[in-house]
């Protein structure tokens, strides 16, 4: 049924299912309402993050980025001092 909804099932099965759905009222309802379910959800944008959560995320990342930069500059200065002593 998922493949029928997505239009990815093969032609013969599609024909059979279409025929059945058009003849069987219950199946028609289930098929139609499932199709509508997909339509309302498709592309639904997620909610904005609560600002407190976003701030904490950004703080944590900024710290991590600064730590990485710091690590690199230590490595650089280490390399420089090694170069100077050799």
């Amino acid at each position, binding site marked *: 049924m998922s493949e029928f909804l997505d239009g990815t099932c093969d032609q013969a099965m599609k024909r059979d299912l279409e025929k059945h759905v058009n003849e069987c009222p219950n199946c028609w309802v289930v098929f139609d309402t499932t199709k509508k379910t997909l339509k309302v959800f*498709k592309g639904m944008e997620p909610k904005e993050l609560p600002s407190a*959560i976003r701030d904490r*995320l950004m703080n944590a990342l900024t710290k991590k980025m600064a730590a990485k930069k710091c690590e690199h500059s230590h490595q650089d200065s280490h390399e420089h001092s090694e170069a100077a002593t050799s």
Partner: protein
Amino acid sequence: MPEPAPFDEAALVARARSGDDSAFGDLVNHYERRIFRLAKNITQNDEDAEDVLQESFMKAYGNLDTFQGNSKFYTWLVRIAVNEALMKLRKRKTDKTVSLDEQLDTGEDTLVREIAVWDDNPEQRYSQDEIREILDKAVASLEPIYSSVFQLRDVEELSTEETAEALNISVPAVKSRLLRARLQLREKLTRFFQRKGDDVFAYL
């Protein structure tokens, strides 16, 4: 004002990998809400979802060097987030291992109980905020193994293969869970979306 530049994931990842932190910041801005939604679907609470959100981006940032570029950055990021979220669940249920591979299916959850016709555009009966709340709650009430597949496949429109890769499950598992998720959601939404029809007159 100039139009904002279109989002180019591959270019931002390349810049971030070469040390451009502002490019990584753009990736965070673009994906933070989706990662939070996914984390919340799996952990089912805000606090754990926030931890997962932070940990995921920290790990992604720290491991950018190891990102191969064979898959999309987002698929890779989802995989990190899913692992983090599952670790949260494991900590909560120490007696039990947790994975999205577990088979919890009894089949009962996909029984069709509601056979009622819906309006053509049933969502139009509600305001934007109301509809979002209805949809969010419906997805949140699904088991994580269904809601995560549904979010990636039907909301964000990833392919079956990408979804399988991101969640670290098989393609047949994606397909069967997707069908179950779709049918369960249909069932849950019927209450809100069924055509009022003749019943309306009963209230007049």
